[in-house]
């Protein structure tokens, strides 16, 4: 088994009296696609938001790439190498597709106000590098032909892909996708699957929240199931599918 990339240690999150996450521990290995599933309201997105710093955990901690992950602000998580997409797409609607991805390079570049104003050779080279990399990524996810269109004008499937390109622009070690196939038709889902498999082939680790069970079971190397904020299973898809607790969480307890 390959090295461990991310470890969650007994992560808990409460909203007042609501226990959204209860001592969730999980382990994601380098280079795998790790699925996170569960019925609605199970705490999947909450876990995402805690991991990426949008919420602060009530208790528990994360270890990322062998070091404790300090989550005091989302931008530090991005800097550490975790990038995410959102369940309801959050693009910069009035910026072009290319600019959206260029913003993703922010965390790996340095030019400040003075650099921008003087626009010396260093800044110009960096700027050219940003644009080149952004274009590469647009090609990679397959929306390069829409590079100059405002993000708001892209078709739904392309918006999802653009959001992935923007996340990839931060040079992540772990890419966290929050329901990337939501609202996609069969063709778009198939293309997304190819894209995510390509990411794994290129050595990226992917954490995937998904409702499309068929997609998750076919794509993921391992799957964790959350129910009422607790992890009830974590294993390879074939075993998880047959786990009685998982079946119970999705279908309810048999009466007979």
């Amino acid at each position, binding site marked *: 088994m390959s090295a461990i990339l991310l470890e969650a240690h007994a992560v808990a999150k409460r909203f007042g009296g609501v226990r959204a996450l209860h001592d969730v521990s999980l382990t994601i290995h380098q280079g795998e696609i790790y699925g996170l599933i569960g019925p609605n309201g199970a705490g999947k997105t909450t876990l995402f938001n805690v991991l990426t710093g949008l919420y602060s955990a009530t208790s528990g901690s994360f270890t990322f790439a062998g070091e404790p992950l300090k989550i005091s602000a*989302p931008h530090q998580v991005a800097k550490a190498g975790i990038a995410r997409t959102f369940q309801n797409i959050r693009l*910069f609607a009035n910026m072009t597709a290319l600019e959206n991805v260029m*913003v993703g390079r922010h965390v790996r570049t340095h030019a400040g106000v003075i*650099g921008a*104003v003087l626009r010396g050779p260093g800044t110009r080279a960096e*700027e050219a590098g*940003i644009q080149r990399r952004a274009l590469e990524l647009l090609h990679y996810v397959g929306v390069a032909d829409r590079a*100059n269109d405002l993000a708001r004008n892209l078709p739904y499937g392309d918006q999802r892909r653009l959001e992935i390109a923007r996340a990839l622009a*931060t040079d992540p070690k772990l890419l966290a996708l929050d329901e990337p196939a939501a609202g996609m038709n069969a063709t778009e889902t198939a293309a997304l699957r190819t894209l995510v498999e390509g990411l794994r082939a290129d050595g990226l680790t992917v954490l995937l929240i998904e409702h499309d069970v068929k997609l998750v079971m076919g794509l993921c190397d391992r799957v964790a199931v959350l129910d009422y904020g607790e992890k009830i299973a974590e294993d390879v898809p074939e075993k998880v599918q047959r786990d009685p607790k998982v079946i119970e969480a999705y279908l309810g307890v048999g009466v007979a």
Partner: protein
Amino acid sequence: MNARVSFLKYAGVLLVALVLLTLPFALTAAGTAWVRITNLAILFVFLSLGLNIVVGYAGLLDLGYVAFYGVGAYVYALLASPHFGVHLPFWIILPIGAAVAALFGVLLGTPTLKLRGDYLAIVTLGFGEIVRIFLNNLSRPVNITNGPQGIAIIDPVRIGGISFGREDIFLGLSVSGPVKYYYLLLLLLLLVIVVNLRLQNSRIGRAWEAIREDETAARAVGIDTTRVKLLAFAMGASFGGVAGGMFSSIQGFISPESFVLTESVMILAMVVLGGMGNIWGVIAGALLLSFVPEMLRYTVVPVQIAVFGKLLVEPEVIRMLLFGLALVLMMRFRPAGLWPLRARQREFSKQDVVK
């Protein structure tokens, strides 16, 4: 094809430059007042471009922007007048004014980082009033601002032996003080525009726009929104500081009355009218709202007297009436401004992208 386009572009730029360079002489023929009006209009362009960074790029509604104008003006007045007996040259004071204004920008920005929209507007409005009230009252126990009386006999700009406060003859051509200021302001304006354009197409400019579009997503892709927002406040404020300094030296006299809320509202109206986020739109908005009222001032009275034989409606009343009407019409028909941001799309030419 491309060569032809760039030739037309250069010809256009040349023509604009020629018009701008000869403009003061045409204006002098119409009356020196028009040169002064033009100078003030350029100051409003500075202010609008500064506010555009905060409101147009970063999307932070600031209703107290005039405070930075005031800070810049008072920094200049205090460092170049008999009030303290300090007489520093303008090229030292302007950067100081910009820096002090930027500091005030950070001062305003820090407590408002978590606020958005209406709430931010209210706090910034309060900030603008606080600064004005301070200027009004900082005459006791130690007299710093001279209170409501303001500060007078502020030094005009001096370059070498040439004072901008009086008329001079160059090459047999009589050049008045306002005309000299016009050229200085034109030079500064060029600088301000270049700085603005470069900021817009930079890593920082994109970060500002990202925050405007979706702050949560901006944080998720690694933008330190705290820092980047404060930078927007500071940069925007520094433009206001420079404008304030020039205002001080041109007017020779300032008092807190010049830095009231309606000025903030006016600058914001210029930004919104022109097209938030687009430099050229903002410039157009500032020029339009600076010149049209002045034109009315000179036409409303004679027209009424010619038509009715007496003055029925004061120019000021008509000005506000038209202003209100213009804003209503604009919100109805061109909510994004006269010259909106959309033009940006063409910045990256197609051939760079399609391979």
